[in-house]
């Protein structure tokens, strides 16, 4: 897509100087991050580097010790209640373990945000649930099932359907392919690319899955030493930082990169985006 015009495009998410500390342990030490419109941005880092903490800081689920987070130009610290409400409706989130409400059926889970913000008749709500189920590749009958009756892949899809129900422009995914078999994971990647182009989404994805990274992400931010190094995948493959080298040149990375090349790099269908590295 057309995200690759350099600095004149205002970022959807702008994080500056983020500091997150747990007691004496500093997880983020002045982290900067820019997410541009319509890109699929991957967040990568070792265990304990604070990927989920970063996501929670951006979502406002955690107040950082220092630093600013702006979404669509609005600083999270200065939001009025109506502004916060509008903001929350403009993005969708999936959590690592699905986080579907266990006492509601899949369709009711999808309808939950709709009932909250756009109440309509049961008929319309059922039609909208059907729409979201169809968009993520679930059958209409799956809507009546409860989360405890779903397989892992179906839970991820149901969570995505719920995240999309308010028609957001921004999507946050926390380890969307974790625990999925390779076929389901590949199918999820294709679904994500399809929805990304059809719905013109901006996607921020935390993932360990190298195959997903190479298949879907246009830019990747690596959390190293409490800060973020952002670059295209090609740029990161050249990067000399020891951790990044090990991550992207270990045996698994080589296989994933090879598969990514033979499929045609990434969702944009074209080569690297020409964004320089930040940080």
């Amino acid at each position, binding site marked *: 897509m057309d995200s690759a015009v350099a600095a004149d495009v205002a970022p959807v998410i702008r994080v500056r100087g983020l500091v997150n500390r747990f007691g004496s342990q500093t997880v983020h030490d002045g982290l900067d991050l820019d997410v541009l419109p319509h890109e699929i941005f991957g967040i990568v880092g070792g265990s304990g580097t604070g990927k989920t903490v970063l996501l929670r800081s951006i979502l406002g689920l955690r107040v950082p010790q220092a630093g600013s987070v702006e979404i669509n130009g609005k600083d999270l610290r200065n939001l009025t209640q109506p502004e916060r409400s509008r903001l929350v409706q403009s993005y969708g989130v999936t959590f690592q373990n699905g986080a579907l409400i266990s006492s509601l059926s899949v369709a009711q889970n999808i309808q939950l945000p709709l009932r909250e913000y*756009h109440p*309509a008749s049961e008929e*319309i709500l059922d039609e*909208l649930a*059907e*729409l979201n189920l169809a968009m993520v590749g679930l059958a209409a009958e799956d809507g009546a099932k*409860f989360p405890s009756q779903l397989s892992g892949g179906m839970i991820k899809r149901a969570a995505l359907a719920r995240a999309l129900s308010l*028609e957001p422009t921004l999507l946050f995914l926390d380890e969307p392919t974790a625990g999925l078999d390779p076929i389901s994971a590949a199918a999820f990647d294709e679904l994500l690319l399809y929805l990304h182009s*059809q719905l013109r989404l901006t996607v921020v994805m935390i993932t360990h899955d190298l195959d997903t990274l190479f298949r879907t992400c246009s830019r990747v931010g690596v959390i190293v030493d409490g800060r973020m190094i952002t670059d295209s995948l090609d740029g990161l493959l050249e990067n000399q930082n020891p951790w990044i080298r090990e991550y992207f040149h270990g045996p698994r990375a080589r296989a994933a990169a090879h598969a990514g090349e033979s499929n045609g790099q990434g969702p944009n269908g074209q080569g690297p985006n020409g964004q320089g590295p930040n940080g």
Partner: protein
Amino acid sequence: MARGDEHSRTIESPLALQGAGEDWRLNLAGDWSLAGMAQIEVQLRTLPAALRGTLVCDWSEAKTPGIGTAWALLLKLSGLGAKVSHTGNPPHFLQLLLKLTADRHAAQAAPTTDHSIEASVGHLGRWAVLQGTHARGVLDFFGRMVTVLGQAFARPRALRVSSLARHIYETGITAIPIVSLIAFLISVIVAYLGAQQLSRFGADIFVVDLVTIAVLREMGVLLTAIIVAGRSGSAFAAEIGVMQLNEETDALRAMGMNPIELLVVPRVLALVIAMPCLTVIADAMGLAGGGLLSLLNLHIPLPQFTFRLRESISSTTFWAGLIKAPVFALLIAMVGTYRGMQVRDSARELGRLTTVAVVQSIFLVILADALFAVLFVQIQF
């Protein structure tokens, strides 16, 4: 159509149908985002059930069209029968939605609930069978517990002492303040009310008898049991319930360990040990409360109080109360842990079964108390 013409004159109506015979036009206008859904739905219902010929859907005046609203429109249009085309810069996702409507199967009819007499009898029958299965489940649970206890003689390690200690602390020691306070206060209330009545006959001193017998035989142990049922019964059910939801109990079984041995027996034993101790404390605090009230309200000095107390106690008074404590403890702990082990699937089940655990254990305690009362009268204990 006249109705269509009326609509086209309305300002900012989300949709306006024009035309006649074989040529129709649907003009969309106004807010077509999700926020406008309520109004759009109302207008969609006013469309006729079927149209012949062709329908051109004009999107040029529709502001910020959203996927959900477009979907609702397409579903309605696909049922009209006319051949639909879209103009006026339709939204980019329309292709996706058209593909989804083409793939769509007709919705299945919702299963109707049968209200006949046959169905009600069947329902009752199923419920009765379920109760039978539950009763067997309880017996099974009790049996497993006893088996583990039996095995502990040959294999003392089966008694998880550190776990037992933790539970004695949590169910017993941390309960001391609340049990003491409630026993003290209730005893004060009983003494106060009793004193009102007894002083009419000049029989003030018998308040001591009243307090002693009430507290030691009944109230000490019963109040303790009810408090413990609320505190520990729910805690047992909730802890074990969450472990069920997190698959922790499955993990234990997969490692060859018996959840009954690790989770249930320590809790049951701990409560059976802790409750008699708590009962003694409740008895003591109850007597203290009665004594304080007698002193302050009836001006019965402490030596006289203790003298009268010793007179009114028989050999069985204290033990009649205390003997009930381990029985109540067994009931509370078994109900709590059993309900915890039943939790499956969802947070709602956890909430429900925790509630059931508390309510049922209190019920069983009071039932047992009634049975004990009858028994003691019969054997003159």
